[in-house]
């Protein structure tokens, strides 16, 4: 038991900035993983859900008698059986005081509001037997008209929840004229109509599905003093709070564990009916219970993302100087107002002005209830939608003025010497350099050469046309200053918590309230703490994802873990040093004022005397010789609440080839230069950027949750919800400029969502750019070959996607299962 954490002074290489290989990987590459579905407890029961095949229907009756007789079935329960023990699924962000919010029972007993909603749960000794019995539950439905189309639902043609009297949930406005952060957008538009340019466009943000690779799974063990829930979640702390708040179990009796979690992208930022039902069943039966969804269930009932119509009006002077931007959104909430709910479009409200110096701005969103799967955060959450809108509009403005799209942006963007800059949306951008990132990206792409090739292809009438797309994005991330969240009526704060514990054996345990699900926190946080305390990277152990280990936290989303959670860790580590200082001074028989701390070592100024922090930790553990009145612990906590968001930015350039004969698209090259402030681990950053890019590109080109006329999700399996593969994507070139963030110690900005936010408009701009000379100014996402081909052939931007799937799986003798994707059976479940 020796304290050997001190790093030799001559070998001290800063951990921050190193491309450390990840600590997480050893177990992940050898299969020694702890996914929720791996957990097996003695006597554990398995659940199968009976789901509604109808988008909207009254539940007339549920006959569970045959299912109850099925082999090894323990019970079959409905909403009526479980009653109040079910709790409710809450909305944490009522965006207006008068928001219309339907009650959301995890398992309604009277009426279903989307296809896939759970009406009964089968509990059996094995998962197979639970599924067998679920087939036998006989539900009689009385089908109701369903509110499906977003625009028609906004007009209240058919009501998603008849008792509410309207589908309109909330109308939320930000107006720079009213807020005093800018002028009146109506005045700007009126003026531009007489002597400037007014561009009016309507863009569709199609519905997407987060499609994390690990299906959601929940295990509840009610047998101890604390009821333990393991769940594939991004938010163990919020989950614990919500369970306590809605099911009557004291928070102190609840332990939530997020073990290894296989991706989230916002899709696991939710408190789900499945978690609540598993909780209620385990408590009722007093036995451990597990529910793991199938992929089809995940696609059908896990929350979706995006799904907006954007009506945009941009006013500019004739030279392309923007004078005002007006945004009217319709946002589809789906059947219920989810945890973040209408807060998703509100998170975009401050970003439509992006990097530009617009003098007037107005944003309004109407959130709308429909009989579709509920929507919530999906990577970027509000900011991809905003970035898409403004970056598409800036390309349209460039085309209107007749200049290069980069030139129109430069005319309007904030110059690097103008930071800090308060935008028309009222946010203060602390740092950035759009000129530098853009110059680097142009160089990486070979911008001028590709423009020359584009001209050649146009002139020769080449069947393959080339387009170059630009996206100079910024985003606000690091959710979030609690005061701002309070002003926006969010139900919680945005602080983060960390503890640093100095162990007697020389190891350092770092506890974080963030909850990683693939980001590499264990590695990056180890680097931060190793540098701060001057200990070895290998000696730092990062603990998270268990409310008994990490009791305080606000979890992981919104690119917050490093910039909020990392800062909490820095502050906790600094407190450790402050606590160690008097003990070190005492042991060194020196004055505290004469001590300095560097490279993990306290030394007495002007002497060669000193001791490592690990030695102080050991002495503190022994506590044989501490100064009077000093506690025998160096362990420290910190809770950090950011004063501001941070604002990563970057320039993304995409070159796309368009086969004008078929509409097929081929990405030729994609480069980006992002400014995310100081970088902790460039390898991890590269992974975040690559993965983010492909998700954003996938929105542009492939993904869409499509419903048919009866409200059945047609793209209900990976056969029809098209995730790209390695064979569909290319290698990327990425680089960085660095404008350190000024509102946190490490100078870092979030990177988790940047690639996704930036890439979608870059790709669509490239596609439109390739065919603009053919009279095209828009192609609706996803830019399918068919839509591109139709646009080329004069049929416009492309309407809705045909609601039918290819029937590859022959369905002879279908047995009426609730899991099956893409079928629009009108039979009741279990028929």
């Amino acid at each position, binding site marked *: 038991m020796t304290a050997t954490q001190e790093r030799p002074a001559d070998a001290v290489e800063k951990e921050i900035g190193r491309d450390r290989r990840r600590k997480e990987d050893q177990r992940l590459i050898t299969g020694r993983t702890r996914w929720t579905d791996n957990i097996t407890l003695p006597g554990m029961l398995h659940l199968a859900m009976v789901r509604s095949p109808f988008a909207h229907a009254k539940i007339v009756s549920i006959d569970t008698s045959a299912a109850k007789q099925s082999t090894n079935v323990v019970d079959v329960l409905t909403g009526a059986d479980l009653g109040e023990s079910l709790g409710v699924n809450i909305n944490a962000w009522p965006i207006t005081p008068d928001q219309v919010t339907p009650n959301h029972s995890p398992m309604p007993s009277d009426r279903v509001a989307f296809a896939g909603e759970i009406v009964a749960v089968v509990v059996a000794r094995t998962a197979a037997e639970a599924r067998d019995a679920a087939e036998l539950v006989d539900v009689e439905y009385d089908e109701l008209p369903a509110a499906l189309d977003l625009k028609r639902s906004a007009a209240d043609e058919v009501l998603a929840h008849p008792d509410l009297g309207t589908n309109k949930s909330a109308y939320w406005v930000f107006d720079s004229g009213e807020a005093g952060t800018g002028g009146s957008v109506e005045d700007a538009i009126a003026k531009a109509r007489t002597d400037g340019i007014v561009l009016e466009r309507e863009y569709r943000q199609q519905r997407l599905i987060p499609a994390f690779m690990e299906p959601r799974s929940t295990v509840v063990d009610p047998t101890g003093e604390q009821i333990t829930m393991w769940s594939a979640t991004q938010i163990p702390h919020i989950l614990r709070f919500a369970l306590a708040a809605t099911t009557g179990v004291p928070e102190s009796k609840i332990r939530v564990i997020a073990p290894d979690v*296989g991706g989230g992208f916002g899709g696991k930022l939710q408190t789900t009916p499945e978690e609540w039902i598993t909780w209620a069943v385990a408590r009722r039966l007093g036995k451990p219970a597990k529910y793991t969804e199938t992929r089809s269930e995940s696609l059908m009932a896990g929350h979706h993302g995006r799904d907006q119509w954007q009506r945009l009006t941009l006013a500019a002077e004739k030279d392309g100087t923007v004078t005002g931007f007006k945004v009217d959104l319709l946002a589809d909430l789906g059947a219920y107002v989810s945890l973040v709910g209408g807060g998703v479009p509100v998170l975009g409200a401050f970003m439509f002005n992006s990097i530009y110096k617009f003098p007037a701005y107005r944003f309004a969103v109407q959130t709308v209830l429909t009989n579709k799967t509920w929507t919530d955060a999906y990577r970027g959450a509000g900011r991809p939608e905003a970035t898409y809108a403004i970056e598409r509009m800036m390309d349209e403005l460039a085309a209107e003025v007749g200049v290069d799209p980069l030139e129109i942006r430069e005319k309007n963007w904030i110059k690097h010497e103008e930071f800090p800059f308060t935008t028309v949306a009222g946010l203060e951008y602390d740092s950035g350099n759009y000129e530098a990132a853009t110059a680097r990206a142009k160089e990486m792409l070979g911008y001028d050469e590709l423009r020359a090739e584009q001209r050649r292809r146009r002139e020769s009438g080449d069947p393959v046309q080339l387009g170059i797309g630009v996206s100079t994005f910024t985003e606000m991330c690091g959710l979030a200053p609690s005061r701002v969240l309070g002003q926006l009526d969010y139900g919680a704060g945005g602080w983060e918590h960390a503890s640093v514990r100095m162990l007697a054996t020389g190891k350092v345990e770092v506890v974080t309230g963030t909850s990683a699900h693939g980001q590499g926190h264990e590695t990056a946080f180890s680097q931060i703490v190793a540098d701060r305390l001057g200990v070895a990277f290998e000696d730092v152990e990062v603990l998270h994802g268990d409310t008994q280990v990490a009791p305080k936290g606000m979890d992981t989303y919104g690119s917050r873990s490093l910039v909020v959670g990392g800062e909490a860790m820095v502050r906790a580590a600094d407190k450790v040093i402050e606590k160690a200082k008097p003990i070190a001074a005492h042991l060194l028989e020196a004055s505290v004022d004469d001590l300095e701390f560097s490279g993990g070592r306290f030394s007495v100024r002007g002497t060669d005397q000193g001791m490592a922090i690990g030695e102080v930790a050991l002495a503190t553990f022994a506590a044989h010789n501490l100064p009077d009145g000093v506690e025998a612990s160096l362990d420290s906590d910190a809770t950090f609440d950011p004063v501001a968001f941070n604002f990563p930015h970057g320039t993304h350039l995409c070159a796309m080839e368009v086969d004008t004969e078929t509409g097929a698209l081929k990405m030729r090259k994609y480069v980006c230069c992002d400014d995310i402030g100081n970088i902790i681990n460039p390898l991890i950053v590269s992974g975040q950027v690559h993965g983010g890019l492909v998700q954003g590109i996938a929105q542009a080109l492939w993904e869409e949750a499509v419903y048919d006329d009866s409200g059945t999700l047609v793209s209900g399996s990976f056969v029809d919800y098209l995730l790209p593969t390695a*064979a569909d994507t290319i290698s990327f070139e990425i680089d960085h400029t660095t404008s350190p963030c000024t509102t946190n110690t490490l100078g870092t900005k979030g990177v988790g969502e940047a690639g996704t936010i930036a890439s979608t408009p870059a790709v669509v701009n490239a596609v439109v750019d390739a065919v603009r000379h053919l009279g095209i100014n828009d192609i609706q996402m996803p830019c399918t070959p068919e839509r591109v081909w139709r646009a080329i052939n004069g049929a416009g931007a492309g309407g809705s996607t045909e609601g039918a799937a290819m029937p590859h799986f022959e369905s002879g003798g279908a047995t009426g299962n609730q899991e099956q994707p893409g079928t629009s059976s009108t039979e009741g479940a279990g028929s």
Partner: protein
Amino acid sequence: MTRISLTVDGARVSDDVEPRMLLVQYLRERLGKTGTVIGCDTSNCGACTVHLNGTSVKSCNVLAVQADGAEVTTIEGLATDGQLHPVQEAFRECHGLQCGFCTPGMIMQSVDLLNDNPKPTEEEIRLGLEGNLCRCTGYHNIVRAVQHASGQGVTS
């Protein structure tokens, strides 16, 4: 119930199974080989990829009874004597994984790919992995990892 006997990661095992039990369920639920995971129900995602008699298959698309008499290798049997397989090592070295859920299947398929074609081009790597979905990495570093494992230069 049907009696099956097979070799999994070098160990002889024998069990009575229901004919409907999938190989992936047998591996996970009976043998505790939870390194192999289930990511979809249509055989698109490849997360459950294992080697069956030396070639890659999706273990959700094989019945356990069909593996009677076979030799199965999972991600848990890839390292030998505590030494990581070069493809495992390459995935770590090149940051070819994030959440790690697709990783067992991705590694097993990459091993198969390199068995067939020890020096693949980038395009051959990308096509060879078309049966495996990843949502985190954007595939960029997975491709690098396979290049690295093949002993070829890694581009950018």
